[in-house]
């Protein structure tokens, strides 16, 4: 699987009023710390409406009238060169997972692609400590960094519907953990990722009764424990 890797950082337009900073080199934790640090600074720049760290990249949403995309792009790139790339990580969250079986319905498919047995996939997936790198597509645990390279697996060509709620999945070089289903929210989601297990005790990562509502933060760590491996 080839993953786009840039020799030099770049900032490209996302339409007329958003910019994407993409870091140079391999996907790493120090680079991501730089992304978090520069996001904290850019938040206060004039014309900036919203920010979203991705995997070694950062989306900057500008005011369509007030924001100056060209000038802001140059400023982001200049600041990126010397932004500090260190930061303290957050707390450790431990999550029990039943790998395979009904909750991890894509396990065998993934095994066929990466040429490992379900037991090997589970062991390799549960070995590292993951870091919450970036927010995901819904309120939850976001994109997790730390996946064993042997488990890298291209996303599906055509998205499939998979049950929400505690799913443990792999997509590209990333893993994720689905949040518990909130009352009234969708119970199935479209995804191009492979769901290999299901967390039995996922904590609630997002609760509107709190201000701010996020109960986990970028930089928090997650360790998966194999509760069981189902066929």
């Amino acid at each position: 699987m080839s993953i786009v890797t840039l020799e030099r950082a770049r900032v490209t337009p996302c339409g007329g009023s958003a910019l994407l900073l993409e870091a140079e080199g391999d996907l790493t934790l120090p680079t991501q710390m730089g992304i978090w640090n520069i996001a904290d600074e850019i938040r206060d720049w004039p014309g900036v409406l919203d920010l979203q760290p991705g995997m070694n990249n950062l989306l900057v949403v500008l005011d369509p009238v007030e924001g100056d995309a060209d000038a802001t792009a140059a400023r982001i790139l200049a600041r990126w060169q010397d932004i500090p790339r260190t930061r303290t990580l957050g707390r450790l969250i431990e999550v029990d997972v039943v790998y395979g079986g009904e909750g991890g319905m894509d396990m065998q498919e993934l095994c066929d692609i990466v040429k490992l047995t379900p037991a090997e996939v589970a062991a390799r997936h549960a070995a590292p400590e993951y870091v919450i790198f970036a927010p995901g597509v819904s309120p939850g645990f976001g994109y997790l960094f730390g996946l064993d390279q042997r488990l890298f697996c291209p996303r599906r060509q055509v998205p499939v519907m998979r049950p929400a709620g505690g799913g443990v999945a792999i997509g590209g070089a990333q893993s994720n953990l689905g949040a518990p289903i909130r009352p009234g929210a969708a119970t199935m989601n479209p995804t191009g990722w492979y769901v290999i297990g299901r967390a039995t005790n996922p904590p609630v990562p997002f609760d509107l009764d709190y201000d701010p509502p996020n109960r986990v933060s970028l930089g928090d760590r997650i360790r998966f424990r194999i509760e069981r491996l189902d066929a």
Partner: protein
Amino acid sequence: MIEIIETAPLNAVHDLGRLGTRCYGIGRSGAMDRVALAAGNAMLGNDANAAGIEVQLFPIVLRFTVDTMVAVTGADAGALLDGVPVPAFWAMPVKAGQELELVSPADGMRSYVTVAGGIDVPVVLGSRTTALRDAFGGFQGRALKAGDMLPIGAAPALAAREAAGFGAASPWHAVTRPACGDAAPDDITLRVVPAGEYEQYDEPSQAALWAQPWTVTTQSNRQGYRLQGDKALVRQPLEMRSHGIVPGVVQVPPSGQPIIQLSDGNSAGGYPKIGVVIDADLWRVAQAAPGRRLRFVPCTPALAREAERELAHYLDTLRRQSAWVRRAA
């Protein structure tokens, strides 16, 4: 209050959307045709971001429990006030007990009902827009259904100079259509800024992006529109790092047939993006029904800003001129 007497599914309360929540994995959402919503608010003298009802499936029947003033904008859905036809982009006083029905649009996709004072649902994370998938915001975090009673915000009592109200020139007439040499009159033309992966497409694909019409398929909704073109967009298969995406992003899945991500689209993704429809043209996409042809026109951030200024000028002028034909009741 506004009582929902009858409604098709998936109609919901929206304002211009949520900002500052991307850090939680929550996208902007908001009205698909933000210009139609803002035009209604301008006609009523509301805050530009006041919430209204987005109607994307028909019919819907509303009853007002108080005397107020309302506007119906966006697609002309053959609105009837107590059975009397209401023109497109129209604001009018209504009496308690009167019923407004939006029947079905002959052209366009989405209509908006705004009310003096706005729909006063609670502000959640800075917005009144409904986050349907995550079930919060709007009216109880869900689409509207019969029996719902929507609170109306406080507003000065308004009347129009004429009892029948007044109308507005729609943005289709008042805002410049993006120029595209050989587009058919019915084609919807959209300005697109080439995005990060544009250069990685082969030359025939780059040419096809601009040269061929892209037909809106039936797999099109608030999350995104799947398009179909004669020539697919070809590129070496590459796995991208996930990154934040904005409404308007033209993603190209492996099929080579593009998807425009829209208001309820995923806030992050990994498909390569060949370009991004500028914010100032997304309202046009919102009104493109399946079967309609889209044409893409190259654009730059600087030109996108000009287009945004033109929209702002339209809305400011409409707000000022509407005040002339409105008066305190």
